[in-house]
């Protein structure tokens, strides 16, 4: 694989130059830290830049117009919304105005939710970290699982007919004409803009990533593989549910938590449990719930959390069952 020369360099540094014994915990931790930090940052840069660049071709306004054109809650509508959730620029700060904008444009509630679930869950940081730590196969599985949850949860919420549990004032709002989007950027401007945006994201998360890998490295050195299998392995029926409950309040540190999650799987935590934890961290974040409460009555908010939470737990068990 691409990182073999780097592994060789790190091996030489830890075992030959520093003269640490390959079997000592300190050597193992240091080797892991050096190798993983560089590998993860390279993959993060690649993924974040690629997604930011793709996103420069999309905008929430365009996505809204596309979804509004195909009114009616169909599986295709939910699928399209979930897919657009990945490529449309999104931040949880804008969940409320986006939601109102979608509803006002006549987009069905279930389709709106498919978008709102997939947008934060399948994000560039999570994908970059998953690719770096678990490999591209797991990153792809994560995308597929995230899309499935967004589509199914959106369809379920749509079928439940909960329109009256959106705060009334939302339906009174009329979205006015916007102040224009400016000129269309050239390819060069897109590339430069995406690069700058990627650096911004990296500046925001790098410290968490390094700390996360640091703690992961300590675990790598001192906690033997499989040590936690007894508690959180595929055999423990409650592990997925507990992982989801722990994941909900942990939002802002998703970048720092993943290296730990990866180490936990090495220590014996089942992969499905780890993925469920990851999804709970990204899709059901506490700050976003507080914002959504402004537009959703408690009952709909509870249904949203319940349906998405159930979906995540189901995916977690499915994986624990498949990957044994």
């Amino acid at each position, binding site marked *: 694989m691409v990182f073999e020369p780097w592994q060789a360099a790190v091996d030489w540094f830890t075992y030959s130059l520093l003269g640490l014994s390959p079997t000592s915990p300190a050597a193992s931790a240091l080797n892991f830290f050096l190798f993983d930090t560089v590998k993860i940052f390279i993959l993060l840069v690649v993924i974040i830049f690629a997604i930011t660049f793709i996103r420069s071709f999309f*905008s*929430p*306004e365009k996505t*809204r117009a596309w979804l509004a054109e195909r009114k009616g809650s169909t599986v295709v509508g939910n699928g399209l919304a979930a897919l657009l959730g990945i490529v449309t*620029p*999104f*931040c*949880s*700060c*804008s969940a*409320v*105005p*986006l939601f*109102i*904008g979608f509803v*006002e444009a006549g987009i069905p509630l279930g389709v709106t939710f498919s978008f709102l679930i997939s947008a934060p869950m399948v994000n560039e940081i999570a994908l970059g970290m998953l690719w770096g730590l678990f490999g591209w196969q797991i990153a792809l599985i994560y995308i597929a699982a995230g899309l499935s949850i967004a589509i199914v949860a959106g369809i379920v919420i749509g079928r439940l007919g909960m329109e009256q549990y959106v705060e009334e*004032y939302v339906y*009174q*709002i*009329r*979205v*006015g*004409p*916007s*102040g*224009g*989007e*400016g000129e269309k950027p050239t390819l060069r401007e897109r590339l430069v803009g995406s690069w700058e*945006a990627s650096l*911004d994201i990296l500046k925001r998360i790098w410290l968490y990533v390094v700390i996360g890998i640091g703690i992961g490295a300590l675990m790598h050195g001192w906690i033997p593989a499989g040590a936690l299998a007894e508690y959180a392995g595929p055999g423990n029926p409650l592990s997925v549910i507990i992982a989801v409950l722990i994941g909900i309040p942990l939002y802002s540190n998703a970048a720092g938590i993943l290296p730990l999650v990866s180490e936990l799987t090495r220590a014996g935590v089942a992969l499905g449990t780890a993925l469920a934890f990851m999804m709970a961290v990204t899709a059901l974040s506490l*700050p976003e719930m507080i*914002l959504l409460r*402004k537009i959703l009555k408690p009952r709909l908010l509870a249904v949203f959390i319940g349906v998405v939470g159930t979906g995540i737990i189901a995916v977690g068990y499915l994986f624990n069952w498949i990957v044994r």
Partner: protein
Amino acid sequence: MKVEIFGNGCAKCHQLEKHVTEAVREMDLTAEVVKVDDIVEIMNRGIIFTPALVIDGETKVAGRVPSVKEIRELLTAGA
């Protein structure tokens, strides 16, 4: 010049406000800086992606926090 900051109270919106205030002070501009955090008003203005920076009625930035340097450039272009 009228500079408007749209956001419904998230961390990024506060940061945008800080950057704008700093840019305006550095440039010694006489600009009217308005913070709009009422969601109804935000929607009425056609903004569905916050935080947003609007200069003289034209949406310049939406959904991200531009640097102080970028805001200075936008303000210079608008002056």
